[in-house]
């Protein structure tokens, strides 16, 4: 059995963070922290050993999610997946992130994305089909889903 993921949630909406936490845990993974601002996210990435961070673009201190992704990327300990209702704000290079789960996601869409990411992080490339609503960054697309 593939080892579950340790997830950091970076999301300013309490309701969404709460529900995301439940879904992550129901899928057998663990949530190691919840940050609502870029400052909190930075300090939590230092103090936790998250495998993956789900990062919203809009946080309590503004549209700082991309900066957070850059910061996490430089630390090279965790991977980033954007989770946003505004995917157009993500730069073309995705700030090093794996990809984006576009909001609003469906319950099944998220569960499928978690399975896909678990495979991708633990034993890349993932074997499951890429879920609807999940988009890979160009860099990860080349490695995880090379065109046949």
């Amino acid at each position: 059995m593939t080892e579950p993921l340790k997830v950091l949630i970076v999301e300013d909406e309490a309701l969404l963070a709460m529900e995301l936490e439940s879904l992550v845990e129901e899928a057998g993974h663990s949530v190691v922290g919840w940050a609502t601002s870029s400052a909190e996210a930075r300090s939590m990435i230092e103090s936790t050993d998250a495998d993956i961070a789900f990062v919203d673009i809009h946080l309590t201190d503004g549209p700082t999610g991309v900066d957070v992704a850059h910061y996490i990327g430089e630390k090279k300990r965790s991977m980033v997946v954007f989770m946003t209702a505004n995917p157009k704000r993500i730069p073309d290079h995705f700030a090093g992130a794996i990809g984006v789960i576009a909001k609003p996601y469906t319950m099944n869409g998220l569960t499928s994305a978690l399975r896909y990411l678990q495979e991708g992080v633990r034993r890349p490339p993932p074997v499951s089909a890429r879920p609807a609503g999940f988009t890979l960054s160009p860099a990860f697309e080349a490695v995880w889903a090379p065109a046949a």
Partner: protein
Amino acid sequence: MDWKRTREPADAWHMTDDLHVEHGKGDPFAAAIRATRMSMVITDPRRPDNPIVFANDAFLRLTGYERHEVLGKNCRFLQGPKTDKVAVAQIRTAIEDNADVSVDILNYRKDGSTFWNALYISPVSNDKGEVQFFFASQLDVSDRKRSEHRITADKDRFEKAVKERTAELEAALEAQTTLLHEVDHRVKNNLQMISSLTIMQRRTIKDEATRHSLATMLERIEALSTVHRRLYQSKDVSRFDVSDFAKDLVTDLLTASGRSGIKPKLELDPIVISAEKATPVALMVNELVTNALKHAFKEGPDGTTAGRIGIKMSQPDGHFKIEVSDDGVGMAEANGDASFGMRLIKSLARQLHADIEWRDAGPGTKVVISMPNEPQQKRTLS
């Protein structure tokens, strides 16, 4: 006309006002120059300060001077405070170099009024190549200059107005785009919150029927969510690619059902409908597919369910046609409950002016929906 006379043009200029050479009166060249409407003067560079030695009537009419006022004077009396110094220097240099010059220069009449003078000066030399006279013609081009100025001013004014208007429109578009993104963002976040609340509520409920109800509600909310996620992915927010949506929806519903034995069969032409039809179409397709998933298939003896759900979308003769089919147990058993779902489908069909028909597909059921779809340009939706 004999050859010798034309060889000696300098002689012709001896018939000037200044020299009063009588025999020149009969000279046709001199007569022509006196009478022409083109203003002309001749100056003599061999005399001090290169004075005017001949001026025709046209010159006097143009400048407003009497003949005696101009003869013996250098032409510079035509210049005034607004005369371009560069043009004056150009003339001076040409005269010093014994060269031709053509220049537009602002000149002053006797009464102080100004006119634009298209001045042409050329030296007249004798056989030895010595300059005898300068011949100058003046053409009043004030009208041309005025329209040139007006055209330049109009062009500047027009360009400025266009620039301002463009900036205004760009700002308005920018504001509108920002607003659209903001609203879009809020709609999506709110849909996400509604589904999250529903899921959380469902977790706290023990009663199976209520849980089932909430699950059905969540499916409907998520169908709307999928519409909105897809809607603003394209550049043109007024058009909706219904085939991409159907693929997302069916994949999602099938995986969510956990019944891997049921395979989708998708025959989806790329069809674009207007955005206002997106929601009712999405809800209707969601109802039909979830209905089929829930009622059409019976578990086999091994506890698994096998079967096929097909969605076909096509666009024959101006109509948008959706076919949802299954190879399950057939209509007799499938139509029993889900009365709210059925009412929903029928109401949405009315809203869309769609004909809906349940057919026994033996095995299974086929639902055929057909609605008018105004011809949509096939656009590349990114």
